[in-house]
C-alpha cells in the first residue's frame, strides 16, 4: 500500500510517545503524592487535595494530548498532500478512496499503540526516578506506592485514540483526490478545501466574542469581589478555545504581517509567501506553539503581578520578600515545565512539517537555482520561512498570554485591598527572555534539515518532466 505515512512515521511516533509519557508520568507523580499525603494524614483532607491534584494533572494532560492531535493531523495532511499523484494512480488502478484512507488511519492506530507503550514505560520510569530523588534529597518521605495502578493506563489509551483519530482526520484530503490527477502533467495546485470551514469559523467567532465579554465582565466584577476570577476563567477558556478553533482565520494575517517585517529581499519575500502558501497547514503548525507560549506567559504575568502586589503590601516587611519571590518562581517554573511539554510536541510538529513542505518543492527550488538563486539565498529563504512561523507564534502567544495573565490577576486581586484597584500587568522579563531564546533555537533547528535538502537540489530538477 502506498497510502502509508512513511516520512511522517518518526515524528508521529515521537509525538505519541511524548504525549503518553508526559501523561503517565504526571499521573504517577500525583498518585505518589497522594500516597505520601495519606501516609502523613492528620487533617483527613488528603482526599480533597489528591482530587485537586488529579484535576490539575488532567488539565495539562488534555492540553498536551490536544496539541499532539493537531500535530499528528497536520503531519498526515502534509504527507497526503505530497502524495497526491501516487494516491491518484492507485485510485486509477481501482483502489477506493475509503480503502486508502483506512490504511492511513490503521497505521496511525499502530503507531499510536507503539508510542503509548513506550510512553507508559518511559513515564513510569521517570516518575519512579523522581520519587527516588525526592526521598534521597529529603523533599518527601519514602512511602509505599503501587506503581502498577490501572489509572495510569488512561493517558496511554487516550494517546492511542488521539493518534488514530488525528490520522483519520488528517487524511481527509485522500477523498478529494481524483484518479485523473495521475495523468496530468502540470503539478496539481492543492487548494485545501474550504468546505466545513464556515461553520467552524462561526463557532470560533461566537466563542471568542462571548468569551471576551465574559472575561471583561470578570475583570469588572473583580473590582469588588475575588469571585470575579471564576467568571473571568470561564471567559478565558471560551475565548481561547475560539482563537484556537479559528486559527485558520487568526494566524494567516499575523504570518503576513511578520513576513512583511522580514524585508524586501527576494529570499525574504518568497519566504513570506511560502509561510502562508497553505494557510490551513501554517495555522496548524503554529497554533500548538501559540497555546504553549500563551499559557506560560499567562501564568508568569499573573504570578508577577501577584508578586508586585504582595511586595507593595509588604513594603515595611522586607524579610518576607525572599519567601514570596521563591514561591512565585517555583510556581512559574512548575507551570512552565508542565506547559513546556505541549510546546515541545508542537515544536516537533513544526520542525517536521516545515521539512516536508520544503521537500515537496524540489522542482520549484531547482527552478530558483536555474534562474540564478545562490545556495546562500536558498538557505536565507528557508531560515526566513522558519522565522516567520516561530516569530508569529511567539508574538501572538506573548500578547495573548499577557492579556490573559493580566485579566486573571485583575479579576482575582482587584478587590483585595477593600477598594477597587487597577492592577497594571507586570511583564516577567526573565520568562519572556527564555521564550524568545527558545523560539530562536527552534527557528534554527527547524531550518537545518530543510535548508540542507534545499541547497542539495540540482537546478536540473526544474527541467525534468515528472
Amino acid at each position, binding site marked *: 500500500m502506498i497510502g502509508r505515512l512513511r516520512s511522517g512515521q518518526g515524528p508521529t511516533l515521537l509525538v505519541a510517545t511524548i504525549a503518553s509519557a508526559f501523561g503517565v508520568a504526571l499521573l504517577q507523580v500525583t498518585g505518589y503524592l497522594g500516597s505520601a499525603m495519606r501516609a502523613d494524614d492528620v487533617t483527613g483532607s488528603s482526599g480533597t487535595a489528591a482530587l485537586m491534584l488529579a484535576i490539575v494533572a488532567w488539565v495539562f494532560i488534555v492540553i498536551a494530548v490536544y496539541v499532539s492531535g493537531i500535530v499528528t493531523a497536520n503531519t498526515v495532511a502534509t504527507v497526503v498532500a505530497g502524495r497526491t499523484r501516487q494516491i491518484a494512480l492507485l485510485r486509477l488502478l481501482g483502489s477506493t478512496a475509503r480503502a486508502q484512507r483506512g490504511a492511513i488511519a490503521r497505521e496511525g492506530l499502530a503507531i499510536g499503540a507503539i508510542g503509548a507503550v513506550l510512553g507508559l514505560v518511559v513515564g513510569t520510569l521517570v516518575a519512579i526516578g523522581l520519587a527516588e530523588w525526592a526521598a534521597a534529597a529529603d523533599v518527601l518521605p519514602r512511602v509505599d506506592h503501587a506503581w502498577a495502578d490501572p489509572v495510569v493506563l488512561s493517558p496511554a489509551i487516550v494517546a492511542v485514540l488521539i493518534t488514530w483519530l488525528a490520522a483519520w482526520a488528517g487524511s481527509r484530503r485522500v477523498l478529494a483526490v481524483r484518479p485523473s490527477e495521475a495523468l496530468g*502533467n*502540470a*503539478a496539481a*495546485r492543492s487548494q485545501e478545501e474550504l468546505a466545513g470551514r464556515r461553520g467552524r469559523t462561526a463557532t470560533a467567532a461566537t466563542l471568542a466574542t462571548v468569551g471576551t465579554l465574559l472575561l471583561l465582565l470578570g475583570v469588572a466584577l473583580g473590582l469588588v469581589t475575588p469571585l470575579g476570577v471564576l467568571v473571568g476563567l470561564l471567559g478565558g477558556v471560551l475565548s481561547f478555545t475560539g482563537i484556537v478553533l479559528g486559527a485558520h482565520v487568526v494566524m494567516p494575517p499575523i504570518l503576513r504581517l511578520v513576513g512583511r517585517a522580514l524585508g524586501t*529581499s*527576494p529570499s525574504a*519575500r*518568497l519566504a513570506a*509567501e*511560502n509561510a502562508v*502558501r497553505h494557510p490551513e497547514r501554517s495555522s496548524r503548525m503554529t497554533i500548538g506553539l501559540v497555546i504553549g507560549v500563551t499559557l506560560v506567559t499567562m501564568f508568569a504575568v499573573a504570578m508577577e503581578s501577584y508578586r508586585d502586589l504582595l511586595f507593595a503590601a509588604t513594603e515595611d516587611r522586607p524579610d518576607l520578600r525572599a519567601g514570596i519571590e521563591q514561591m512565585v518562581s517555583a510556581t512559574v517554573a512548575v507551570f512552565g515545565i508542565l506547559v513546556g511539554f505541549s510546546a515541545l510536541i508542537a515544536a516537533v510538529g513544526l520542525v517536521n512539517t516545515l521539512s516536508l513542505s520544503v521537500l515537496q518543492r524540489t*522542482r*520549484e527550488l531547482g*527552478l*530558483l*537555482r*536555474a*534562474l*540564478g*538563486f*545562490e*545556495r546562500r*539565498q536558498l538557505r536565507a529563504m528557508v531560515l526566513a520561512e522558519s522565522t516567520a512561523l516561530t516569530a508569529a507564534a511567539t508574538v501572538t502567544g506573548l500578547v495573548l498570554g499577557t492579556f490573559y495573565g493580566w485579566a486573571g490577576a485583575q479579576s482575582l486581586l482587584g478587590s483585595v485591598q477593600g477598594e477597587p484597584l487597577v492592577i497594571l500587568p507586570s511583564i516577567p522579563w526573565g520568562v519572556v527572555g527564555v521564550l524568545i531564546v527558545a523560539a530562536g533555537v527552534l527557528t534554527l533547528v527547524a531550518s537545518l534539515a530543510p535548508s540542507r535538502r534545499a541547497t542539495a537540489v*540540482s*537546478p*536540473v530538477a*526544474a*527541467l525534468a*518532466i*515528472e
Partner: protein
Amino acid sequence: MEIQPSDLGLVARVAGLGKHYGTGAGAVTALEDVSLGLRRGEFTAIMGPSGSGKSTLMHIMAGLDSATTGRVWLGDTEITELPDGALTVLRRRRVGFVFQAFNLVPTLDALGNVLLPFELDGRRPTREERALIDGLVERLGLADRLRHRPHELSGGQQQRVATARALATRPDLVFADEPTGNLDSRTGREVLEILADASRTHGQSIAMVTHDPIAASHADRILFLADGRIVRDAQRTSAEEIATYMLSMERAA
C-alpha cells in the same frame, strides 16, 4: 592569443564535449566528442530522438551540469571549470530559460515572475529594461494578467509569462526546453513566433531543444543529434523535410 568565440560571431561554443555516466560495463555515454558553436542572434533548434543527448547538451551549455571531457564557453567566458557560485551568477545575468512545464514560481504573480531575475540580482530594471518589459508584456497580451498568480492563468498564458521572464534581461542566450510540449498547437505556434520574433527583431540568440518538427521549422538553423553525436547541421527548412529526416534517423537506429 587564443581566438575568442566572439571573434567567430559565436555566443556559445563547446569543443570535444563528452558526458559519461558510471564506469566499466555499466557505463553510459550521453555525449561523445561534440564540437559546435551557436551563432549570435540566431534561433537554433537542437533535435534528436529521445536519449540522443540533446537535453544533456543543453544542461551543460547552460551551466546546469558539468561535462566529463571537453570545454564549454558562454560568450567569451569559459564555464567548464567555473565553481557553483560563479555559474549561478552567470545564469542569473546571461542566460534565460523557458521550460516545458512553464515553471513559474507559484507564490509570485505574473509580473513578480517576470521581474524575478532582476530581483535575484538585487536591482531594479533600468528605464531601458523597463521599456523592454512593457513592450514584451504588451506584445504577449499579458497586460491585464500581470497581477494573476500562475494557477489563475491558462497554459499558454503561463508559457508567455515564462517567455517574458527569459527575454526580459536581454540574456546572451535563451535556452528553451520543449517549450511547446505542454501546449495545444495554436498556443504553441504563438510561443514559437514570439521566440522567432525576438531573434529576428532584437538579435536575441536562442537555443531550443525539441523533437517537434513543426517547432524546429521556426528556427534559423537545426542541429540533429543521435547517440550523443551531431549528425547533421542544417539551415532553416520545412517541417515536412525535418520530419522525414527524423524518421530516417529512427529507422537507422
